[in-house]
């Protein structure tokens, strides 16, 4: 073993002295501090990792790319030797990471070279999946599609994609599905991770598009993280915050999270509300900002509508009232209100603690409202980051592969539809827009009732990631469903497919993608895909050709085939829209490192912040959405929006707190929340195949508080059963500092690496066995954070600690836990 960490660019490195072994980056997740003061530039620190026995001088080529195992967009180069990936090295000049990499960046690439990659198309014959040729597989898909179009029409066909392909691939899918097949049933698993981010931005600003920039960390005097464990989900962004905290003039930190995350430990004020009460808490914080007199009244008058309604609503949510709803001390709520009200440069970030919870959009919108009240948007340090969970989720949204229309166009604005039809050269009536595009949960409902008869799943694994898995398995294993799965491994979902299409992974294909703060990166092909695996773009384009999809003049609908051609087509589609890529080219992205959209002739270097000077994309003719009723989800009509917001200001939307649908009762006295750990991504398909990451968090665990451990006679390492009305999961106990009454399960663990393959054996392992089928009415994002559950001991442990990481939010509450136990050794 000779792993090492590159601290300086290879060319300048002359010895190993002073470098930290890379393997320590499993336990030393964020690495060494490089402190900097407010307003200074974040120093560079180049992280890297090469496979055992490989030295930098052995590397044949360094190929430009960026991370696809989280949403941060860390730029790095892929090291290639003898046609294989052998390591990675951060790009020092990149605006996002300044050279730094996190554990998943450093080690995750090994999943590519796993011996169980899919290398041939598979087709179901006599009940079993067998190898076949691409021609056979694609003819089966095309034959199935044509038959259903004849029998029922486009309503029979659904596409369920991901947040992990490339921009060009989503755009191809959106064109093929909306413009060619003409189905309204297209969504991504982004519905589970970033739908609320998009919806909250549309509600407040009339249009999707991240207002803030990561550079706001450099300028903020306060950073508020709402349900966002950034230390584990975007490690490099947390490094940036840690470096500010280590420098002079550090920002104050507000953390809202029921778990003792690394963020909570570093926080100036930490609020740990009862799950499902975020709206009440946010209303109390706004109540404080207003009653303290911290509202920027001239700004609010000039740039917003809806303030009076908000003022009236939050007047009912004093810290004392909300203290009993959220079970948070009123004094802490006041302290948080003071922190937010006194800040002169506030950066707020929001993630799954809000998005996957009850009243998701209503809560996320209140964070936008906080910034609107304070007039803190579009200036250095004054940013909102409604985060994403997946690396390319932003592109799923932009390209219209997720229940939106391409280029943030408004499906209920006939001019926008006509404009898209012009670009695609189809009749406007050929693009379905009678109703909002079908969201993922509704697609599954239509599969369940048999009205969607063909579902094409690309790059996602609903049999593990969707809520209520027993239901999901019964839906996707129906005999009458024609299921096509396009993936790089034989996932749980792929095992149920009628046709499996082997895809090329990141590193084996070229494409662009965009991170949370609108930074576009190019990821170039570094190595060949294994066997007959093909890039997703090639598969979609091949499908369009074989289907003979035509535009209105009878010419082929898809006129391009290479990634660069697809990117250029997208540039035209995005021209003049908020997500304007018209000034970007592959050449511009090559060599340089990361450009933020909008990038146009007028802004050739990209745009750091949106909405400078309070100018929004919210006018009735420009906006992407007229908004929805936050409580019922019903879309607003155009006339209503015109009356509400004729001049295109930001919309302040108030919301009352409503209790969650499933509350604890006698049989299920606790609240279950599911979540993630720093070492894994999604359903663990890639990270479990990277030995260091897998060893760090090898098996599911359940976190309970010391108080609940006492009540239920549980000790560290015991085997416990977690049960809800939907099912049960067995997991070993981690007694942690989590909020009493709350139980946490990581959602990464499914069944592909168990004997059963795609379903539980005697006992459940996947957290989603337990979650409920219910979603936020506005964003349609499923609720993963408010299931009522019970916990009981199954058997005593053997004295060793549970396999939960000790380095993170899942750290044991008692330091007496055997420090050699646990996942991270």
């Amino acid at each position, binding site marked *: 073993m000779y792993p090492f960490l590159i601290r300086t660019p290879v060319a300048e490195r002359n010895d190993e002295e002073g470098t930290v072994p890379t393997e320590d980056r499993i336990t030393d997740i964020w690495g060494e501090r490089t402190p900097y003061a407010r307003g200074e530039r974040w120093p560079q620190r180049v992280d890297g990792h090469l496979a055992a026995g490989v030295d930098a001088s052995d590397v044949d080529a360094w190929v430009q790319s960026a991370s696809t195992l989280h949403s941060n967009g860390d730029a790095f180069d892929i090291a290639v030797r003898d046609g294989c990936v052998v390591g990675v090295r951060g790009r020092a000049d990149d605006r996002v990471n300044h050279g730094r990499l996190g554990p998943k960046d450093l080690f995750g690439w090994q999943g590519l070279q796993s011996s169980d990659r899919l290398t041939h198309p598979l087709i179901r014959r006599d009940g079993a999946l067998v190898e076949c040729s691409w021609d056979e597989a694609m003819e089966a898909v095309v034959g199935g599609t044509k038959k259903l179009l004849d029998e*029922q*029409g486009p*309503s*029979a066909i659904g596409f369920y994609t991901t947040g992990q392909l490339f921009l060009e691939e989503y755009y191809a899918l959106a064109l093929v599905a909306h413009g060619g097949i003409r189905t*309204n049933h297209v969504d991504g698993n982004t519905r589970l991770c970033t739908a609320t981010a998009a919806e909250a931005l549309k509600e407040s600003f009339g249009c999707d598009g991240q207002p803030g920039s990561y550079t706001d960390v450099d300028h903020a005097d306060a950073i508020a993280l709402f349900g966002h464990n950034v230390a584990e989900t975007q490690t490099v962004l947390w490094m940036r915050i840690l470096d500010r905290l280590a420098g002079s003039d550090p920002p104050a930190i507000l953390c809202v999270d029921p778990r003792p995350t690394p963020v909570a430990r570093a926080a100036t004020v930490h609020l740990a509300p009862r799950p499902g009460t975020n709206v009440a808490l946010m209303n109390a914080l706004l109540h404080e900002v207003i009653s303290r007199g911290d509202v920027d009244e001239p700004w609010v008058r000039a740039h917003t509508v809806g303030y009076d309604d908000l003022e009236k609503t939050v007047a009912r949510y004093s810290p004392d009232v909300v203290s009993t709803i959220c079970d948070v001390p009123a004094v802490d709520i006041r302290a948080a209100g003071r922190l937010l009200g006194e800040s002169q440069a506030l950066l707020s970030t929001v993630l799954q603690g809000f998005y996957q919870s009850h009243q998701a959009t209503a809560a996320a919108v209140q964070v936008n409202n906080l910034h609107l009240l304070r007039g803190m948007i579009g200036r250095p340090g004054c940013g909102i980051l409604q985060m994403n969970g997946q690396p390319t989720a932003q592109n799923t949204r932009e390209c219209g592969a997720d229940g939106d229309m391409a280029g943030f166009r408004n499906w209920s604005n006939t001019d926008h539809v006509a404009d898209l039809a012009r670009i695609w050269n189809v009749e406007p009536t050929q693009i*379905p827009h*009678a*109703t*909002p595009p*079908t969201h993922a*949960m*509704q697609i599954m*409902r*239509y599969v*369940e*009732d*048999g*009205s969607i008869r063909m579902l094409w799943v690309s790059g996602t694994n609903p049999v593990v990631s969707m809520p209520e898995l027993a239901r999901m398995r019964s839906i996707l294993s129906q005999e009458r469903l024609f299921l096509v799965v396009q993936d790089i491994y034989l996932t749980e979902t792929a095992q149920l497919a009628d046709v499996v299409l082997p895809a090329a992974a990141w590193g084996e294909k070229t494409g662009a993608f965009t991170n949370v703060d609108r930074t576009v990166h190019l990821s170039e092909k570094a190595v060949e895909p294994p066997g007959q695996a093909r890039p997703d773009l090639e598969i979609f384009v091949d499908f369009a050709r074989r289907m003979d999809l035509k535009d209105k003049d009878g010419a082929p609908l898809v006129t391009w085939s290479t990634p660069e051609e697809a990117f250029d087509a997208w540039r035209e589609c995005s021209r003049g829209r908020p997500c304007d890529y018209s000034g970007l080219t592959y050449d511009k992205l090559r060599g340089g490192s990361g450009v933020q959209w909008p990038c146009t002739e007028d802004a050739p270097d990209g745009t750091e912040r949106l909405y400078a000077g309070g100018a929004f994309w919210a006018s009735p003719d420009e906006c992407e959405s007229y908004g929805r*009723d936050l*409580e*019922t*989800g*019903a*879309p607003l009509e155009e006339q209503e929006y015109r009356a509400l917001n004729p001049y295109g200001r930001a919309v302040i939307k108030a919301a009352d707190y*409503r209790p969650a*649908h499933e509350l604890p009762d006698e049989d299920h006295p606790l609240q279950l929340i599911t979540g993630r750990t720093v070492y894994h991504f999604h359903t663990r398909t890639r990270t479990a195949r990277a030995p260091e990451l897998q060893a760090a968090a090898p098996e599911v665990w359940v976190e309970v508080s010391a108080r609940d451990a006492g009540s239920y006679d549980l000790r560290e390492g015991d085997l416990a059963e977690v049960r809800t009305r939907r099912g049960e999961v067995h997991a070993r106990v981690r007694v942690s500092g989590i909020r009493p009454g709350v139980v946490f399960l990581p959602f990464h663990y499914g069944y592909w690496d168990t004997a059963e393959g795609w379903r539980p054996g005697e006992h459940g392992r996947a957290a989603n066995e337990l979650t409920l*089928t*219910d*979603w936020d*009415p506005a964003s349609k994002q499923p609720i993963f954070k408010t299931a009522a559950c019970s916990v009981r001991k199954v058997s005593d442990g053997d004295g060793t600690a549970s396999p939960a990481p000790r380095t993170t939010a899942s750290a044991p509450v008692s330091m007496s836990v055997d420090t050699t136990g646990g996942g991270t050794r």
Partner: protein
Amino acid sequence: MRIGTVLRDLHHDEKELARTLLRLAEDHRADHEVHHLGHDLAQWSMRHVREIAAIAPAYGQTLDPAPDGTPTLLQSARRAISELSGRSAQMELVMVRDLRDVYLRASGVLTDWEMIGQAAQAIADQELHELATRCQADTKRQATWANAKIKESSTQALVV
């Protein structure tokens, strides 16, 4: 004064709207959004029923503040059937019809509230006007929701 009479009718219509929403929620348990929203929006009407009952004595009416919400044996049977029938696309069409019923009832209630609101202004009754304005806004949202679901579901239920 006839306000009492209209309040009595409105009290009845709000109860019926609540009952219709609850029945929709139970009959279509397999459609989770309709199930959850049906229950949520029924609560709004039940709240209205209580508020109408509270203000009614001022207009010479005695009205029951508690709508009958106890599930019957029949309802339990309907619940079981609704779960079983979730695998049929025909149920989607039944659901659209049931949503239409909700929409029509909500539209009727909306008109009732408009009448009450107008009368309250005519006699300058601040409290009644405030109640009518607030409840009318709720009812409009109930109707808009049913209408939006009808629009959405019709694109699938009517074409399969």
